[in-house]
């Protein structure tokens, strides 16, 4: 009796594959599980195994053929077996099946229902009970397959699938912990997704020579615990004063230019990312900003920030330099249109007036909403910020 190799279903979502290459030829002896054919599935070109053992009599599909899972791909015979019958050819799609008619005991011609169904498409048969159970257990019929190719899917197959899914889920559960989203996390997720899906973002990167910036900060430290964030915020405020048209937020039908520069500075807290907003940055001195920022960070860490203290921003700064990150392209805090990513300061080899020297530098990346600004405008803004930080005394100008 001839036997057949069928295309094995090797993934839950695998429906069909394109035959790439046969690894066997007629006359070869194949063992069940041996790799026999290379085929391209949705995921990759993979070697697929034999579903039975025997001597290859004829290959029923050729490279390039699209074959559904469980469809016959090769005919096998037992060792020493002769076969003179007809070889089942691969069915051309659209052409009618040879209708299977057999004569039953009562002498009536019985037509196989399956041959009628398969004419109109490759419908997998499933018992009413199996269909009902699958529905009750929330198992898609696409994930079910019969114990043997060509058979009907029955109750036992549904339970087998269920058991596989359960053990899979159990393994996953044992190896991991599911943490439900907190309200804050949900809010952050929503804002991030909203920004990414609505704001075409471009990031521009530049390097800032920090020698003078470090000097200024050392001087300021005599008066207050000023950090680089406050100085950078001040520089951004000054730069935006030079380009007031960029101090804006987007609305439904356009963008609104804001009179005051309010800069949100990302703060890492145990509850997640919080962005307190420094108001009227353009009109405040660095020491004042230091004091205000210190208070806001304190509140952020204690979960005491008011809604007002976290809203109204026109620009944001995200500084991850303290973690050694050199450069990144932050996601814009919508409806704002600009965010500055600040990298770490580190010594690097610079060339100044044809001389190599070691300078402390940091990278700035400005992400901007390309729907609102063009690249040149953003580049001008970034250059202004860079210039102010490389020579902070110019902030007085």
């Amino acid at each position, binding site marked *: 009796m001839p036997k057949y190799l069928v295309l094995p279903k090797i993934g839950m979502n695998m429906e069909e594959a394109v035959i790439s290459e046969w690894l066997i030829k007629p006359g070869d002896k194949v063992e069940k599980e041996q790799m026999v054919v290379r085929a391209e599935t949705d995921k990759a070109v993979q070697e697929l195994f034999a579903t039975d053992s025997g001597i290859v009599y004829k290959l029923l599909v050729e490279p390039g053929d699209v074959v559904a899972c469980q469809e016959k791909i090769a005919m096998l015979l037992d060792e020493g077996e002769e076969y003179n019958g007809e070889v089942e050819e691969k069915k051309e799609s659209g052409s009618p099946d040879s209708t299977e008619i057999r004569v039953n*005991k*009562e002498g009536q011609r019985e037509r196989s229902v399956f041959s009628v169904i398969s004419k109109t498409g490759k419908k997998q048969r499933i*018992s*009413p*009970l*199996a*269909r*009902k159970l699958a529905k009750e257990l929330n198992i898609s019929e696409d994930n079910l397959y*019969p*114990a*043997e190719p*060509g*058979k*009907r*899917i*029955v*109750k036992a197959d549904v339970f087998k699938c269920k058991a596989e899914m359960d053990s899979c889920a159990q393994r996953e559960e044992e190896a991991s912990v599911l943490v439900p989203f907190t309200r804050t996390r949900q809010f952050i997720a929503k804002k991030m997704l909203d920004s990414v899906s609505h704001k075409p973002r471009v990031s521009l990167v530049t390097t800032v020579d920090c020698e003078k910036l470090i000097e200024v900060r050392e001087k300021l430290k005599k008066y207050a615990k000023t950090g680089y964030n406050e100085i950078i915020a001040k520089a951004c405020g000054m730069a935006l004063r030079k380009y007031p048209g960029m101090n804006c937020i987007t609305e439904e039908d356009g963008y609104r230019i804001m009179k005051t520069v309010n800069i949100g500075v990302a703060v890492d807290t145990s509850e997640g990312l919080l962005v307190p907003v420094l108001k009227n940055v353009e009109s405040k001195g660095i020491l004042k900003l230091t004091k205000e920022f210190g208070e806001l960070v304190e509140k952020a860490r204690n979960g005491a920030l008011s809604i007002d203290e976290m809203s109204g921003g026109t620009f944001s700064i995200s500084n991850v330099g303290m973690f050694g990150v050199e450069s990144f392209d932050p996601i814009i805090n919508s409806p704002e249109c600009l965010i500055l990513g600040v990298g770490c300061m580190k010594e690097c080899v610079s060339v100044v007036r044809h001389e190599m020297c070691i300078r402390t530098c940091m990278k700035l990346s400005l992400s901007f909403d390309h729907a609102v600004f063009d690249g040149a405008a953003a580049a001008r803004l970034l250059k202004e910020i860079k210039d102010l930080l490389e020579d902070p005394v110019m902030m007085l100008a």
Partner: protein
Amino acid sequence: MSIKTVREALNEAFVEEMEHDDTVFVMGCDNGIKGNPFGVTLGLAEKFGLERVIDTPISEPAFTGMGIGAAVTGMRPIVEIMFCDWVTLAMDQIVNMAAKMRYMFGGKVEMPLVLRVPIGAGGGQAAQHSQSLEAWFNHVPGLKVVAPYTPADCKGLLKAAIRDNNPVLFLENKRTYAVKGEVPEDPDYIVEIGKASVAREGTDITLVTYSSMVKICMQAAERLQKEGISCEIIDLRTLLPLDYDAVIRSLGKTGRVIVVHEASKRGGMGSDIVAELSERAFDLLDAPPLRVGALNIPIPYNETLEAAVLPDAENVIEAVYKSLSNG
């Protein structure tokens, strides 16, 4: 309890009911002096006299009509059609009179008629002495149809049929008269009409059957058990009204069902039961419901051919394999 044959159990039911109620009487060809060809009414004439155990001329329509007349006028006749094959002659009386009169007179008359109709083939009795025509009566509103197998059920259901105020067709399988089993002695023992019994409990597949095929199904189940296939056998006992609750309960357990009867498959009880299950219990089916019955040809006289036509344990086993194959 004591061990009795179906023949003895039926005879006991006659005696008890004739003693219990003077209006009960027996009528049919050779019922009196000879005790019927199968010995079922043996000894009744001596005990109750030929006035209550009447030998009739060979005219099924005449004595069936007599029975109907007696029933509507207050008697409880038990009429025998010696072979089911000849029930054709009395069809008008059964279908148009017995089954309809109570309805047409607005319930003003009762029809406490029992029509004993021996069915079944075997032993080379040929095409006119071998048929099982129960499906015809299943089609007729107004009748009850009973087809028991065990001696206890035969006795209990015959007594229930005699006490019933509706026309009851009581189908005995000729080849089961010698089947032995325990039979309760209690004179008030009856088996309710319309209730099936679980003849064998199982989990993999339900065999719905009745009469002589209970034995065939038991044999098949024994053999399948050795292969690890567990069959549940429902002995319907009553065909009309049919105990679908019992059948569906079993189907709910197994998800697979085969109806097995001796009558020819086409248009048989199996066709109706399978159709009913498809309507009522579609979502319980894990495989197409199957039927096993005799071939759709007359029963041959030649015993070898006859055996080939009738369903046997092998046919039941084949059907079980087919159902379990999910093919």
